[in-house]
């Protein structure tokens, strides 16, 4: 049977791994993303997500270099995103070693981008990332790293993204992100029930129980950033906990 996945997220700014709380990127954790990836390779993570939150597109060049170096050392699947706004960009990232590429802001601004990418590269390579502020009926999709609100409800946008060709949804609660209070489980369940593609939950996980709760809410994969950088041997311990709780992990 297909296993549930544990996915550490590296948030990079200007080539360094940063800590993120409610999308405000605060202190730098490691200067060298390769160090983080080295640990993850040894500790049986299932995939890695690398997101660039650099403030300007000029800092992008450093990100490409990081992606290329990471892909040489990263023997698990790697999903890459941040500022992706064209099929050329997707192609470039795939050639640098990414297995999947994340679309976010530009997909909302120009939804045809999703289908263009799905037709060119296959849906399985295209992850649409949805950032949400607010809960339940007040939940709305935000873009541009939380700076801009839209009137889109997450479930509606997720369904549309799937129709356009998204192969996966990466679902983040901005309110929960960095707070360590767990995923927005109602949000996860609502999106999981609305779409036929896998959903990766992100934003708020800090205890191993949060990861289990995310799986029970229907997520195919549970992702976390800060927790894996601050706890020793954390991904191994996380999996032990999940396994003991009855979750089928690798």
């Amino acid at each position, binding site marked *: *049977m*297909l*296993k*549930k*996945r544990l996915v550490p997220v590296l948030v990079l700014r200007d080539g360094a791994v940063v800590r993120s709380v409610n999308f405000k990127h605060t202190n730098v954790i490691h200067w060298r993303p390769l160090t983080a990836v080295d640990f993850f390779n040894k500790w049986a993570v*299932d*995939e890695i997500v690398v997101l660039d939150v650099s403030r300007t597109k000029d800092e992008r060049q450093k990100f490409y270099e990081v992606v*290329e170096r990471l*892909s*040489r050392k990263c*023997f*698990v*699947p790697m999903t890459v995103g941040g500022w992706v706004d064209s099929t050329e960009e997707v*192609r470039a990232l*795939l*050639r*640098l*070693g*990414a*297995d*999947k590429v994340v679309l976010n802001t530009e997909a909302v601004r120009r939804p045809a981008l999703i289908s263009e990418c*799905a*037709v*060119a*590269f*296959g*849906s*399985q*390579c295209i992850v649409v990332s949805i950032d949400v502020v607010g809960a339940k009926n007040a939940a709305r999709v935000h873009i541009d790293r939380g700076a801009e609100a839209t009137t889109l409800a997450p479930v509606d946008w997720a369904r549309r993204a799937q129709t356009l060709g998204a*192969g*996966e949804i990466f679902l983040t609660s901005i309110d929960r992100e960095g707070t360590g209070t767990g995923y927005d489980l109602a949000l996860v369940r609502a999106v999981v029930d609305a*779409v*036929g*593609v*896998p*959903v990766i939950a992100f934003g708020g996980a800090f205890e191993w129980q949060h990861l289990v709760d995310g799986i029970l809410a229907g997520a*195919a*994969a549970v992702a976390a950033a800060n927790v894996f950088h601050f706890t020793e041997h954390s991904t191994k311990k996380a999996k032990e906990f999940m396994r003991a709780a009855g979750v089928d992990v*690798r």
Partner: protein
Amino acid sequence: MIVVVDYGAGNLRSVVNALESLGRGVSIADSPEPLRQATAIVLPGVGAFSDGMEGLRKRDLVEPLTEAVMGRRVPYLGICLGLQFLAREGLENGRHEGLGWLPGVVRRIEPPDARFKVPHIGWNDVQIRRRGVLLEGVEDPAVFYFLHGYHLDPGDADDAVTSTCFHGVTMAATLEHDNIFAAQFHPEKSQHAGLQLLENFLKAAGA
């Protein structure tokens, strides 16, 4: 000479890295000439079937590949799309011709039950029917990384299926027929078991 075919579809880098980590030098070919000297051919690929086949055609690779694999019987390892191309046709975004080296049709994965999400993404168990070359020394069941929304329905080539996976439907995971070897999952991303599979192919190819 081990040739990895570059036809513009997705992630070449991981496959090359994996082969090099096994101590082999590889040549990357995006044109017909290197295929003439190939003693082993690896065709990776993630992407859409039609786009991939178009990439092969645009680079004039279809005839040289067929000549090498079906003519000279050069050992061939297809990964993901590289397995799907073996089919006569693929049904992603319309009907598209494959290489046709084996019977079979590439169809969308259609599980009978909404609990099974599509695309099939992640680590799944593989049930071994026969070890053949690829699965020598691999545990049973082994776990490999899958990333696909379509699968090869082998039709008359069912004998060539050496292992399967289950995701709402049972699907071919590896195929072996003569000098043709293929995996639907990504051995280059499947850590130890995947590297074992690649080593098995390379040894069998005398590479």
